[in-house]
């Protein structure tokens, strides 16, 4: 169902792990399926110098979160959080059915909410 690229990242995420000295900790639980993912963000001014995650979830939410963390490093946090949801889904490596959109969008929505609540 999923490509090797997806499965490899699911089994071997590169940004998994707790961060001790973070600037933001975003605790976003997906309400419909029991996924629970926490994002840790380290900032250098407005720029994300590191982002990691921990938790559990389905293949899509895990892979999306791990890629999100990796791809956000070095970027401005406002720019990362401001990304359009439609574009985010479009850029995801595999196509997603409507019922699974919230899995893929989990990290982006978490960051958007984290910024709002900060």
């Amino acid at each position: 169902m999923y490509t090797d690229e997806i499965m490899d990242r699911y089994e071997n995420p590169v940004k998994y792990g707790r961060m001790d000295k973070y600037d933001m900790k975003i605790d976003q639980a997906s309400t419909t399926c029991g996924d629970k993912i926490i994002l840790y963000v380290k900032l250098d001014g407005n720029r994300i110098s590191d982002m990691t995650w921990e938790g559990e979830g389905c293949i899509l939410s895990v892979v999306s979160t791990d890629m999100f963390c990796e791809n956000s490093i070095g970027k401005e946090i406002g720019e990362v959080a401001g990304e359009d949801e439609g574009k985010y889904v479009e850029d995801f490596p595999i196509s997603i059915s409507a019922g699974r959109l919230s899995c893929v969008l989990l990290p982006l929505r978490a960051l958007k909410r984290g910024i709002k609540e900060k």
Partner: protein
Amino acid sequence: MTWSRIREDFPILNKKVNGKRIVYLDSTATTQKPRQVIDAIVNYYENVNANVHRSVYRLGDEATEAYEGSRKKVADFIGARTEEIVFTRNTTESLNLLSYSLEGTLKQGDKILITSMEHHSNILPWMRLERKGIKLEYVGFDDEGLLDMEDFKRKLTKDVKIVSVTHESNVLGTINPVEEIGKMAKENSSIFIVDAAQSVPHMPFRVNEYYDFVAFSGHKMLGPMGIGVLYGKYDFLDRMEPFNRGGEMIKDVDFHSVVFEDPPLKFEAGTPNVEGAVGLAAAIDYLKSIGMENVRAHEKTLTSMAMKGIDSLKNVIYYGPRDPEKRGGVIAFNVNSGMKIKRSLERENVRVDSLYHSHDIATFLDGYNVYVRSGHHCAEPLARTLGITGTARASFYVYNDEEDVRAFLEALGGIDVHR
């Protein structure tokens, strides 16, 4: 009974996706509708529609007859009296009606006894009353998903005023001994409520002296969405407070006083869902033409076949009783991924292991046109008891056949491999 012919009555099941037949295994969530039900609804709007109970012209009479005739059909189907059938939106609304209308009979310190395998719709209406100082208690179940009757007896104390139990679990498939439970509840002078959302559609069902109330939904038994049923013993309905207030449910209204209608209209404020009632009546006709014994036997055959098939798969686990006599046609399952993934968050009651997420299983099966549900199935306390976050779930009904079970098992075999 030619089961494959029944499938032809369901237009949606003739739909092809990617050129192939669809295997609909989510009837526990909602059922598909036969042509006969669709036609009945169209006929209602083309030939009968008018507001009910208030128009004196011919069409109004016909609409009222259609609506009240549907009520009689529902009553006959479960062995009740017509005036004991209240039309609601669904099981959830039936149970909420009870929570509100029985609230006045409860006082601080009273207990409500339910089980750990309830759907949220038989938990949250009662949890609402905890703020009044009413205690909600749960009866547990064993490793096989059978209700712990010793626990039930222990918890059925004198202060238990309401016992509300699901007849068949929408996850485990467990068929609970509601008659036995009801008998004990009545001996304890408790009000006894049966959540029959998963039983009335799937097996012969008759009300009896122990059941004070029974709730079920039309859309889970081939009828349309938005029509549900609350059966209540007439004496109870007569004494109870109304739920919603407004049109239709009154005999007389003055500036500061009101005389309510008799049951069941007392509980049906506003213009009712007549098309829903008419569609439900057509669904009942359809089920009766098959025979509820046959429905139950058919589901047992398919469930046994599916359980046997799953047993031969290496990494698939399923929940609930092993004996098909003790369960309905619903199978909740998970697939072990065999991956050594350590990603544990400290979460109470949730064991993090190497199961595939149920959504991933459902998406995988979707690739084979096999439609199963995934998640916690609106029964989170149940999932927590099992120590999991969710399951995939396959369920069967009259339009499923052995070909569907084979397609399901074949697709499932594709995920049953350790990478």
